[in-house]
């Protein structure tokens, strides 16, 4: 084999590999984008208690994250434990008052979304808004983590509202 043939062969092999990988999607990778927490999110199948509680939690996370200008995912990880919450607050320069306000805003948004999806009656939603406006941060987080009582019949709602009051 002469030198020219060797160089041309090397060029052809390299170009073939690069083109094949580009055509197969190499270089197209983008990490799965996380949704904008401030954008409205449709509730899916809000009929069941469990499903409604899930949608309530996601709406509340969206609302709180939107208020704090962070992603819903970052906030969900932050709210997992008191330690992760403190670390998150320190990293983002958020004080206790701001976090409490954000959690309340999140719960308010979840109530609005639940009412719009017919998962909560308007009367119950109004009652919950009054409670949510004075909700301590720990109770707010507990509600985000498990709101099933809210959707488990009228008795459940009344008990839950009573339990939330400071």
């Amino acid at each position: 084999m002469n030198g020219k043939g060797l160089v041309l062969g090397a060029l052809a092999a390299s170009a073939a590999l690069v083109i094949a990988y580009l055509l197969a999607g190499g270089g197209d990778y983008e990490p799965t984008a996380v949704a904008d927490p401030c954008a409205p999110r449709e509730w899916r199948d809000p009929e069941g208690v469990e499903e409604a509680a899930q949608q309530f939690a996601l709406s509340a996370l969206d609302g709180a994250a939107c208020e704090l200008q962070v992603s819903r995912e970052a906030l969900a990880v932050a709210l997992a434990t008191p330690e992760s919450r403190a670390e998150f607050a320190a990293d983002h320069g958020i004080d206790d008052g701001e976090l409490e306000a954000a959690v309340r805003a999140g719960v308010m948004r979840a109530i609005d979304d639940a009412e719009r999806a017919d998962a909560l009656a308007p009367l119950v939603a109004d009652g919950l808004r009054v409670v949510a406006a004075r909700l301590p941060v720990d109770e707010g987080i507990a509600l985000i983590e498990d709101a099933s009582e809210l959707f488990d019949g009228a008795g459940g709602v009344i008990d839950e509202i009573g339990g939330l009051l400071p």
Partner: protein
Amino acid sequence: MAESTGRTTLAAAVGLVLADSSIVVLALPEIYRELDVSVAAVVWVLIAFNLVLALAAVPAAHAAGTIGPARLTAAGLVLFSAASLACGLAPSIEVLLAARCVQAIGGAAAVCAALELMPATYGSERRAARAWAAAGATGAALGPGVGGLLTELISWESIFLVQVPAALAFAVPLIAAARGEQRAARAPGSVRPHLAANAALALVSAALAAALFLVVLLLIEGWRLTPIAAAAAVSVLPVCSLLAAPLARRVAAVDARAAAGVILIAGGLAGLGLLPKASVLLTIPPQALVGVGLTLTLSALTEAALAGRAPQAIHGGWTIAARHAGVVAGLLVLTPIFTGDLESERDDAEAAGTAALLDSRLSPGDKLDLAERIAAQIEREGDKVPVLGPAFEPLPDDPQQRAETISLRTSIEDEIDRAATHAFSASFLIAAGFALAALIPIAIARRRIEL
């Protein structure tokens, strides 16, 4: 020393020493776990050896003329052997790094002085130079696979401990030859090193550092393969490198071999930077190109750097200095880039995984439970790409929840694999740029009809 024995001993000694520039690559994850250091710190196990080898090569080559090449080769191998023992017994990263530096000094002495001995056993300086370059390239290419195998079958320490008797065995016939060795006059020739060929060697070696080092990290740290599986995967490169040796012999034009090799290395690295998905099979064609390119270009550039120059040992020393300085530069440039990218991709993957978990149809109880187990698993894995499989065990009994959990696990693991693959892309593409940049000195040398 018989001629054929001498050939084998010298080539094997050169291969053994230069394998050490890459042999620990597959053991790095094991070393940094056991010695409790960061990825950025453990890379110095590689950098220290290559840096000291680069710095010691030319002085060692000068010393070969004073002390005598057989004596220096033997002494270098004995020192290399003793330092290998210290590496194998090192209780801390500091001791390991110090021993690696001593190992490199012994290695530089052995490799450079061996080049002065080889023409007598190979019949001509040209054949000796070609064999010396091929032995070094083969050693560097085989290093990761052999190191991975030893790490998996025995331990990372065994990589160094097996070298102790091997280096001593190569030293024994040389000690006999060194007795009564006379100081011979060195042949006249150009003392000035071949700048273009050495510059090209440095750039190609910077690119090869990525091929040998980053591929392994991608397989073990990114895709979480075991060292033995990674060793099998990276064996493609040395196998193709060995298969390309006859091709390198059939093409006489040194400049064409050098240019073709550089183009293949750049193409292979670009392929690794553009992997369409996390699949070991897809790393095979790029590794094959790099393996063939490595054989073509390293032998051609080393021959060019030594042709018509004397003493051979000193110019050989310059090629060793250029190659290993290139490896060091490649590691120093690429390590912060890929570690930074890995961290940022890890954050993106964590966010995407959390989104998948939040949006999954698991019951709130299972979701919370799983989130806690995943967080604990990530915490346990520290700053590494996490293995999340154990966090999903045991699977829920309810068939619907079970199917949902399996689907979620697949989706999160796929996200992590894609993110880890992408984290290495920029480094591979920059390394491809190093390889292409080597075409400039090759072209300059060709114009001067020096190659």
